[in-house]
């Protein structure tokens, strides 16, 4: 890729990050519209505020939420495509540019290991100081694909997310019931409901987390399988409602991705209650 191509790549990545942080996908608007048809007055009021906010954010290309999130990059690459160091640098430059443009919240923590953990040296003033999470790359069957997903992961859902083992007893029901129990507890504490539950199931904590992130990129509000519907319905019985104010719609949908499984009595499950504005994700085909 020549210099012009790299510059265009940087600009496209910056725009993708801004889109991730400011735009609702159409099917999420649809999910909110369905939820508002049947809920309590307070829940409908809260969901209307959330939808109005999304429309203003999209129009202004401004943040949906002040916690603009930590950028997570997922790269999918097919057999006939390649990527080199110059392109990766252009992508990272695009992330920095997008964080300035959105603007991202200036929340990179200064200092050495101890200082960063204790947050004793303060924060960087530049939103672009926020380093993305480690890049995730996946080889895919589509030979011509070179695709970048950018996810902006807010802090509230991270407090309430959980990655842990489940003894499955050779029963899908056992695993689903465990997920439902975790989700009920976390959604009731989150505050930014209605949620979208992202669930990954894998052989290790890393793989379960990777599956959870892929669920966030692939999930659709208008295409839900039986497991996803069951989790959503069960968590909604908790009556947490929008913003925890009580109501029928604590969860809009569940996005679940099941990876390869280990020959074992254990499944590793990662569950993240994405807040009312998440998943904040946008895609760029390179």
């Amino acid at each position, binding site marked *: 890729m020549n210099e012009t191509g790299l510059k265009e790549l940087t600009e496209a990545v910056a725009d993708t990050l801004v889109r991730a942080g400011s735009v609702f996908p159409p099917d999420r608007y649809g999910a909110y519209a369905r939820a508002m048809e049947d809920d309590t007055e307070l829940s409908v009021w809260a969901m209307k505020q*959330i939808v*109005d*906010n999304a429309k203003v954010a999209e129009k202004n290309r401004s943040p949906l939420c002040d916690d603009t999130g930590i950028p997570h990059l997922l790269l999918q690459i097919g057999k006939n495509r390649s990527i080199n160091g110059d392109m990766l640098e252009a992508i990272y430059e695009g992330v920095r540019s997008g964080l300035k443009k959105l603007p991202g919240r200036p929340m990179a923590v200064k200092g050495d290991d101890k200082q960063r953990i204790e947050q004793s040296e303060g924060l960087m003033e530049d939103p672009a100081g926020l380093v993305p999470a480690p890049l995730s790359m996946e080889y895919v069957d589509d030979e011509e694909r070179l695709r970048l997903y950018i996810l902006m992961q807010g802090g509230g859902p991270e407090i309430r997310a959980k990655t842990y083992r489940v003894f499955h007893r050779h029963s899908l029901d056992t695993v689903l019931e465990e997920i439902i129990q975790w989700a009920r507890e976390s959604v009731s*504490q989150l505050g930014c409901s209605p949620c979208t539950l992202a669930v990954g199931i894998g052989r290790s904590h890393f793989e379960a987390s990777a599956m959870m992130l892929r669920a966030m990129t692939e999930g659709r509000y208008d295409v839900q399988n039986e497991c996803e519907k069951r989790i959503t319905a069960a968590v909604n019985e908790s009556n947490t409602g929008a913003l925890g104010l009580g109501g029928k719609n604590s969860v809009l949908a569940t996005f679940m991705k099941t990876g390869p499984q280990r020959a074992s009595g254990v499944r590793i499950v990662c569950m993240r209650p994405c807040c009312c504005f998440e998943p904040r994700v946008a895609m760029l085909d390179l």
Partner: protein
Amino acid sequence: MKELRFPVSEEDIKGLKVREQILISGRIFCGRDAVLPKIAGMINDGSIKESGIDLNGGLIFHTAVSPAGVGPTSSNKFEIESTMEILSHAGIRMHLGKGALKKETAEMLKREGAVYAVIPPVTALLTDRIKSRRVAAFGELGMEALYELEVYDYPAVIAIAGGESIYE
């Protein structure tokens, strides 16, 4: 819908009921995890009196203030929920944030004559309704400093008042 202009009187707060929708205007404080324990420390050692920070009849919005805007963080984080008592005792009448709080916190708020309200995390809308902002204390904390904002028409719902909680 009841409209409240901060700072408020004790009478303004007394009549508030759980599930009541309100609109908030006036001068409010913004602080979260990093700064609220420091403000609590200033109350404890008495230095708040010389600081020019007047908490009487005040509101603390649990948010950062940054170029990205404002929006509630989880009020049930340890540093936030655990400082509500001393802040209420020092004059704060409304804590504004999101998320369920403990039963003991609801009882404490009743004792101190304060309430807890939930605000939707609608950053794009809230940021448009800021008239002015200034750092009130601990500017070195950046977005986590104590800010004073002048705002109008912030929508909220009373979640805890008079010992009653929407979460119970």
